[in-house]
């Protein structure tokens, strides 16, 4: 690094680092947004596995006692007794209980709050189980056939929050790379800073490397922060494979620079490139299995997710943090795929950087 090129390169890296601190959009998407996601979703979903409070009423008589016994024996619910239907309905409306069961001597009324759709399907499932068991118990029977559930893989992944953190890490890496080009480089081009830099002996590739180095460093730092926060605040327990993690982080960041290149080349106005990158990030967030699982998407959106880079990077990141099992071949294929995107894009990017700005 003592050659003139080396010194110039270091100088560029320092300048890029300073520029990044001032680049609010990139800062926001790479550090702030993922952090906010972790906090928000962590607090909203991090509690996974807690028992559902269930209200019931009409428990007089032997059937009533049976209902009470069945409810208490059912896993995953915390039964609360209510004196009458009215107070039960009020509690449901005020969301003090997840749902309610009313026994009027002849039939069971299952009461749900209409607007709780996310949870209602799970509640209905629990209710069905209670009804079945109640049916059997009322007739003095007990089940002859049952299910033995055997989980495969890391049991820590059972918490949906734990599944989500690697996805958010992947998102942070993606945006670091994406906005490095569609945002930072494009704005440098618009402000003619790029032209000035190019009059120096530094080849365009040197500039790109400097940008990549800085953005990668920031992405790694952000990932570290996210990992630590998740562990400290929300009991996220990864089994980190450092080698795989770093390899994926590097490949993903430069690969996403490739995606950013595509946007920069397609969108004429440099200022619009950042907006397009903005939208692409948000779309990918929803459709890549980071926020909701891909299997739950409707078929045509599922197909879309198969074409999004973030889908694969998120999977790879889940594997690197020990949340998901994956064959070594598949993992390294993902890494190579990202590197391939970068290699294909860099010559195009270098040409973009040098191309004179059209007025």
């Amino acid at each position, binding site marked *: 690094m003592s050659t003139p090129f080396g010194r110039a390169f270091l100088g560029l890296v320092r300048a890029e680092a300073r520029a990044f601190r001032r680049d609010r959009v990139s800062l*926001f998407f790479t550090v*702030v947004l993922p952090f*906010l*996601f972790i*906090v*928000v979703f962590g*607090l*909203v979903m991090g509690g996974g596995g807690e028992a559902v409070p269930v209200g019931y009423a009409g428990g007089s008589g032997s059937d009533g006692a049976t209902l009470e016994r069945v409810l208490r024996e059912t896993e995953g619910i915390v039964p609360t007794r209510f004196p009458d239907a009215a107070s039960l309905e009020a509690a449901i*409306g*005020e*969301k003090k209980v997840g749902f309610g069961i009313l026994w009027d001597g*002849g*039939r*069971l*009324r299952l009461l*749900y*709050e*209409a*607007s*709780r*759709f*996310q949870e209602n*399907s799970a509640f*209905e499932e629990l209710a069905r189980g209670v*009804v*079945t068991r*109640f*049916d*059997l118990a009322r007739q*003095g*029977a*007990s*089940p*002859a*056939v*049952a*299910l*033995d*559930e*055997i*989980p*495969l*893989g*890391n049991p820590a*992944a*059972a918490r*949906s929050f*734990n599944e989500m953190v690697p996805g958010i890490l992947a998102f942070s890496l993606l945006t670091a790379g994406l906005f490095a080009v569609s945002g930072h480089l494009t704005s440098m081009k618009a402000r003619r800073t790029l032209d000035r830099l190019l009059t120096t002996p530094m080849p365009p590739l040197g500039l790109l490397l400097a940008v990549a180095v800085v953005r990668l460093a920031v992405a790694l730092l952000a990932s570290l922060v996210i990992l630590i926060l998740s562990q400290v605040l929300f009991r996220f327990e990864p089994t980190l494979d450092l080698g795989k993690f770093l390899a994926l982080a590097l490949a993903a960041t430069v690969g996403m620079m490739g995606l950013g290149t595509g946007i920069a080349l397609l969108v004429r106005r440099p200022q619009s490139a950042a*907006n397009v990158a903005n939208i692409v990030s948000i779309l990918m967030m929803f*459709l890549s299995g980071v926020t909701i*699982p891909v299997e*739950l*998407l*409707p*078929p045509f*959106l599922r197909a879309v997710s198969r074409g999004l880079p973030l889908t694969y990077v998120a999977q790879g990141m889940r594997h690197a943090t020990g949340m998901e*099992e*994956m*064959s070594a071949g*598949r993992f390294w294929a993902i890494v190579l795929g990202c590197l391939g995107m970068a290699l294909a894009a860099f010559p195009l990017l270098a040409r973009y950087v040098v191309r004179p700005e059209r007025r």
Partner: protein
Amino acid sequence: MRPALSFALAQLRVTLRERETLFWFVLFPVLLFVLLVAIFGSLGQEGTIHFEVGFVNRDQAAGEAGLGRRIEGILEALSRPAQEGKEPLLHLHRPAGTENLDVFRAREEEAVRYGRHALLVVVPEGFSAGVLDALSSRPGVDPVKVQVFRRAGSSSSGFALLILKQVIAGVDQAVLASAGRFRPEEAVLAETTFLGSPAGTEVRYVDFLLPGLVLMAFFTAGLFGVPGAILFAREQRILRRYWVTPFSVPQFLAGFSVTHAIVCALQFTLLILVGRFALGAEVSFASPGAALFLVLASLTFLAFGFFVASLVQTGAAGMALANAINLPMTFLSGLYYQVGTLPGPLRVLLAVNPLSYLADGLRRVIGLQGAAAPLWLSVLVPILWIGFSLFVAGRRLSWDVGR
């Protein structure tokens, strides 16, 4: 009157001519609406979810009459499409003809472990015999179990498991009934009622989402539009040109508020049209209660915008602050989804967030949900916010760049 209205018209022209404003305030809520409904609206509906399930029946001794074969039959039925052209619920993977069961099972287990398949169902050897034993002995004996391998942490595995639980429960009932232990005709009648919606039926996501998105659009206009317009105009000394004429700050504010109201009306109209004609929403805003909440929301976010503008010096800082506030406030408010029970610190944020009260109140008056909080509270909190915002903005907001 004339200067304020004239200014309102000019400001409206400016807002509609800036492409970026037009996109984020008008088009983006619509896009988000369509996207969220496409994703979440069809959640769990038949024909949209689909699972790969492996099946091994080791209960060969019982043959065609065995319970293992029965379970297989049910799963086969579920792998046929429920409706013409729709995907079936399951795709069943079974060992080919003479394939070694252990080899097949190992491969299937790996498929589940790596997430390619949702479940592996294994009916153990001697299953039917075991069940017969259980039926002939006294009640209370442990049930015989079917093994189900699932992937830890995978929601799709979890969903598929729910389906399988129902299958097994059905088989169990049938078996008990045939042994005389259970009389299906005496099974209880279970009735489902959804509280809070007028017809007692489940609320559709698109109807739930629409008021949330209208509020989100108003919020965006207030949070980004107001500080943006004021701060940049002040910075570039556009405002200064006004202050050397008889045009006063109160007139400016009046005109500005009119423009904001018109933008909100535009957003509302567009979302209603898209919701009603493109996405099949049925919810109606044609009531005095709904009008009250919409106007209240528009005012709250206008005031909030002034508040945010008064906190910073430059336009760039204003936009950064708006971005930082936007996500927590909209996500912790029940705009897009229901916030169930939240832990301590977040509950405080939820309790302070004007968006949650407005969303709650609006959904209440248009008949989408029951009473989570008293209605007067849903009106009071936003009014308090308006007061607070205007108080702070009144003291801090300067209308000209200082030296």
